[in-house]
């Protein structure tokens, strides 16, 4: 497989196709976004097991619940904003509450749908989904972690919210990566500070580490991958072994991954946590990197937060 700059959406489509090959129970539902979510890859190979629900996300999610009661494994896709907000009550009451085996795999999470502007960007979805009981929340960070996470969630019973972005990013893992639900990955060791990142922000954290390293600061980098259930052991170890934690996510700082870490450590091992994310404002249209620079989702802001923490 090729490395460098690959899209997690493509990984999703290809992983679905592979799943379709050996698991006849896998069914795919989309809401007129198959070409954007890449479920089209599955649809082309298995048209009988692909259902377009049109621009009607609520019906799609409740119908997935119905399919799950017939022992199918529905993978349900649309943009993060519509899955997590338009159809959230359907997901909460008909999927999460009865613990049905529905996989909500969403794309265009965070500000990654930069051109479309605030209406199509999703900066609240992690906060919403992580408060619903029975739901596992997963945010892969590259092509290979996406591919492996999609295969992994097909093998576990129960509802999952898996969040993907839109952009291409550098590959972090390779085809031998062993994704485990609830398990984070320490990409780099370090004892001065820990940077915990998710999704496309992991790449930024890695770049920030290089700069910090050149300045004599050794940062541990953790790719969290699963937000719920939380890899408590790795977080606790980072809190004990390093001087503090900086979290990085393309999501509102309220209620997102940074909040998860802060809540956990406040109770278990009070530690200084600084959060990099969207500071409680809506996004807007623009080039993705332009947005990230302006919203603080940048390498320089991560470096700045680390220094603030170590001061």
């Amino acid at each position, binding site marked *: 497989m090729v490395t460098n700059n690959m899209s997690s959406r493509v990984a999703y489509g290809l992983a679905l196709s592979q799943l379709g090959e050996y698991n006849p129970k896998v069914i795919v539902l989309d809401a007129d976004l198959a070409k954007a979510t890449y479920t089209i890859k599955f649809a082309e190979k298995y048209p009988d097991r692909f259902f377009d629900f*049109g621009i*009607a996300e*609520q*019906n799609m999610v409740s*119908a997935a619940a*119905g399919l799950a009661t017939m022992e199918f494994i529905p993978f349900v896709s649309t943009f993060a904003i519509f899955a997590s907000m338009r159809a959230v009550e359907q997901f909460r009451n008909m999927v999460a509450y*009865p613990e049905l085996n529905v996989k909500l795999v969403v794309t265009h999470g965070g500000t990654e749908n930069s051109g479309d502007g605030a209406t199509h960007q999703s900066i609240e979805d992690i906060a919403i989904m992580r408060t619903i009981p029975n739901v596992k929340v997963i945010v892969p960070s590259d092509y290979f972690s996406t591919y492996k996470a999609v295969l992994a969630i097909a093998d576990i019973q129960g509802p999952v919210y898996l969040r993907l972005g839109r952009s291409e990013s550098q590959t972090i893992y390779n085809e031998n990566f062993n994704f485990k639900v609830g398990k984070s990955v320490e990409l780099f060791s370090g004892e001065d500070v820990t940077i915990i990142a998710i999704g496309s922000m992991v790449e930024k954290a890695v770049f920030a580490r290089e700069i910090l390293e050149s300045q004599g600061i050794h940062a541990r980098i953790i790719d969290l991958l699963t937000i719920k259930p939380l890899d408590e052991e790795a977080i606790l170890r980072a809190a004990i072994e390093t001087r503090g934690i900086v979290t990085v996510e393309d999501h509102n700082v309220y209620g997102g991954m940074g909040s998860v870490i802060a809540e956990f450590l406040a109770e278990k091992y009070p530690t200084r946590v600084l959060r990099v994310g969207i500071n409680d404002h809506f996004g807007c249209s623009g080039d993705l990197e332009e947005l990230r620079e302006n919203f603080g989702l940048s390498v320089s802001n991560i470096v700045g937060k680390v220094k603030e923490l170590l001061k």
Partner: protein
Amino acid sequence: MEQSLIKELEDGAWQLRERAIEMIYKAGSGHPGGSLSEAEIISVLYFHHLNLDPSKPDWENRDRFILSKGHSCPTLYAALAIRGFFPIEELNRLRKFGSILQGHPDMQRTPGIDISTGSLGQGLSAGVGMALGACLLGSESRIYVLLGCGELQEGQVWEAAMAASHYCLGNLVAIIDYNRLQIDGTNDMVMKIEPLVKKWEAFGWYVQVIDGHSVPEILISLDKASQHRDCPSVIIAKTIKGRGVSFMENNVEWHGKPLTQEEMKQALAELRERRY
């Protein structure tokens, strides 16, 4: 049509009403109005029409039933208990802490419940999913969804109606308990839902309008729906909310009100009189 069957199913409906009233009284809360209006429909489905095996609630080729108007579950619970899905004594524990009988149907707690419902407007969508699933499995299972009339105000119902005809789901049957009342008043006062026949026809459904308290009409309409295999079917069943209890009939106050002991006694006396 066998007269003995009709008599048996009519009797079943009155029995369900008695149970529902007793259950709601003991629970101290619940929804009597809609529980009474749907009694003949539930009786015909659970005591005759549905292909079920109470000893194997998860039998994969069974017919499915979705109570989209989940609040009127006492009648359904009573039918399930009478069919032997769980002991009759459980009916005394409706809405009690730790009970298998929740205020709205819960598939994880109650044997015989095919899917959890409660939030209005979602049952038909779940039915679409089940009907698609049955098609994929090549199963003869048929999917029945009972909706309230006020519930038709939910936009999602029409998303589901569109999808069901788009996918030619001839194995899907919607039944509307058309008692014309909802919490804030009549459908006409709150939010008009008519013209219903035209709406469903426009969405590509085979439509029948029946008297929802007539066992023969329910039996015939279900048979006709079963024969109609090229598109989904809807049975608009005209009913009376609170049917069988004089002070509840057509009275919007009795949508979701518990009964006093006196009211319970009077209601049961009236129901028993109707039954025998």
